[in-house]
């Protein structure tokens, strides 16, 4: 793994992996604090950066923008009216005239009114104008994934809808250190990025997060655990579940390699291919429903590139093809036992 260091105008350093960051200047932070820190750094370094969305001014319903309005003022950190299609469009307009627009959609379950603006406008702005215009300085942050009691409308993982849209990038961090670096990279990327934040991890995930201005490379997957017998691919909250399943499998003598996709689209296919060529087996796991989820795309891609290396069919362990339930959540989720079972079936194929 090469250490990539480039110093940017804001004094930011760019890394491929969090483990490359040698900084000792760290602080214990949970996910929302890491997000807050990233936003604070960008607002401080970039006078053209603006942060807005519903309830952003008082600190946000998940505290991600805590203290930022007091620090940077209401022109730069502000509430919008309750209108997701407006938030998306407003962000595109700002970005098209050179501002760094960081738009917040409170729950990704409510991103759909902005779908037209995101898919038909943001994603195509550069292409359709022959590169005369772009909205690359737009980032849309939105909360994502199961939280234990969210049901249909506070639990969705809609990444697949956006991964099907050329011109967008889609990113999902797994913990605070990744979140800060990936968010800063997303904001500074010259393309519109949708950054999904696993709400279940806002308080639960903690780490010693470097206080520096640093970015982690987009479209690079990370092998978070090396293994020999099978490749497990996931992202966001699901990485924890994969780790738990791997522990169960380890007792059976099965060594699991776990890959965090990090950037959902465009994804790092090479890392996946290298791994599956080594292990010969693969499981992809996500909370989102099975049909046409990211598992479907990655299965198709991997079997195309690794067909002769596969010892077993690629298995997807995902949410069912139902709306996200309430009381059924514990049996809906692709938990460690379902993944463990899939590992066993794959290894014994």
């Amino acid at each position, binding site marked *: 793994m090469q250490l990539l260091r480039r110093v940017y105008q804001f004094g930011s350093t760019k890394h491929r992996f969090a483990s490359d960051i040698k900084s000792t200047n760290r602080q214990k932070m949970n996910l929302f604090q890491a997000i807050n820190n990233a936003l604070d750094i960008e607002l401080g370094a970039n006078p053209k950066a603006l942060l807005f969305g519903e309830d952003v001014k008082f600190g946000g319903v998940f505290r991600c923008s805590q203290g930022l309005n007091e620090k940077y003022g209401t022109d730069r950190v502000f509430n919008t009216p309750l*209108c997701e299609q407006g938030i998306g469009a*407003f962000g*595109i307009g700002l970005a098209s005239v050179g501002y760094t627009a960081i738009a917040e959609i409170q729950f990704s379950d409510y991103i759909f009114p902005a779908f037209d603006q995101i898919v038909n406008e943001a994603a195509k702005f550069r292409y359709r104008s022959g590169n005369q215009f772009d909205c690359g300085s737009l980032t849309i942050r939105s909360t994502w994934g199961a939280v234990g009691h969210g049901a249909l409308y506070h639990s969705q993982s809609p990444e697949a809808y956006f991964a099907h849209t050329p011109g967008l990038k889609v990113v999902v961090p797994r913990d605070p250190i990744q979140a800060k670096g990936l968010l800063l990279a997303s904001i500074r990327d010259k393309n519109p990025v949708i950054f999904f934040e696993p709400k279940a991890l806002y308080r639960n995930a903690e780490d010693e997060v470097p206080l520096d201005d640093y970015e982690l490379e987009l479209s690079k997957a990370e092998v978070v655990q090396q293994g020999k017998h099978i490749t497990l691919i996931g992202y966001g909250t699901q990485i924890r579940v994969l780790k738990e399943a791997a522990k169960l499998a380890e007792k059976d003598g099965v060594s699991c390699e776990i890959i965090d996709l990090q950037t959902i689209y465009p994804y790092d296919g090479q890392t996946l291919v290298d791994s599956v060529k080594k292990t010969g087996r693969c499981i992809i796991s996500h909370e989102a429903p099975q049909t046409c989820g990211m598992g479907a795309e990655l299965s198709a891609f991997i079997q195309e590139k690794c067909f002769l290396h596969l010892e077993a069919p690629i298995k997807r362990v995902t949410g069912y093809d139902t709306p996200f339930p309430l009381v059924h959540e514990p049996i809906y989720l692709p938990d460690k036992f379902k993944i463990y079972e899939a590992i066993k079936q794959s290894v014994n194929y």
Partner: protein
Amino acid sequence: MKHFMRFSKISNAFKEVPSQYVYQIDPIKNFEPIKQFRVIDLEGNLIAKEYNNIPKETLNQIFDLMISIEEMDNLLYMSQRQGKISFYMTSFGETATTVGTTAALQPQDFIFPQYREQGSFMWRGFTIEQIVNQCIGNHLDGGKGRQMPVHYGSKDLNIVTVSSPLTTQVPQASGAGYGFRVNGENKIAATWFGEGAASEGDFHSAMNFAQTLKCQTLFLCRNNHYAISTPTDDQFRGDTIAGKAPAYGMRTLKIDGNDLLAVYNGVKYAREQIIKNKEPFFIEFITYRIGDHSTSDHSVLYRSQEEIDSWKSGNNPINRLGLFLKKQGLRQFNDDHDNQIRKDVRNRVIAALKHGSEQQSPSIQDLFTDVYDEVLPHLQEQYTELRQHLTKYKDQYPINKFKGGL
């Protein structure tokens, strides 16, 4: 605020204000329409003398452009019928709105168009050749041949590229106008949309955001009475579109859109107000779409020729301006001069069509560029795959149509 609270919290505490209450049911039932601002009448006579303030040279340039666009539109419409371009949208009857507005704006103002604003583009210097090349989609098109005809855009002229989804540009202009305000810029974001487009949800979002967040945005509604075949009676109730704007707390003008002097003065006033108050402004132009919606439309299927003619001869922006100029002695030229302008435009369009049709399309690689700021690995791979395929089956594809071929 009298009480500045420590954490800048707004207080919505209850306060009894007796004047807020009435003690009988008296609903709002009358929707008194806002009157249209007008300077000249239908025969070009000057009514509102204090608005006769546009420089003579500007007025003549505007008139020249309006008749030029009429000729260009005519020819490009016919060229579609002849198969030279695939599609076109004329702007007959509406050029006082677009040309007059753009003349009253500043060059640094960003325009977010809908699709019928060739008047805005051309006032700022977009050429006949640029229009024709975009309609053909050849390698000279600034948009790299990616969009259907009339989807122009120009970074140099601060006019954001047209996109087909309606009304999407309107809340984007709210965003841009916000940026201009917080950065203290002497710039506004001016956005065009039709009365039909104003039915979309994006219109409401845009208006609410612009006024609530104080954006330097100018809303320009061309009410031309039809959205394709849908007349205004099937589109909305209440007092046209302008009637909605005060409900957002926004300053509003309704203007006779076929009166060039009213358009120019109204827009100039609106721009000054936006910069002074740092708040948006709404203008609705009442005009009429004399031509079909597009080359895919045949409007006599849903409206009568009598109706069209009532506007074409009764309330025509070019006629009214021309009569005004003549009556005021502002037009030094005679009809021969105007006919020559028209003839020159026709020849130029014909030459542009000929030259444009001889050009190649953008390169094969331009299928894959500009999706992102760089051609990312997965797109490189797909491009390579395509090249291999085209090489193998080269006789089955018009390879040489693309600049650079394979």
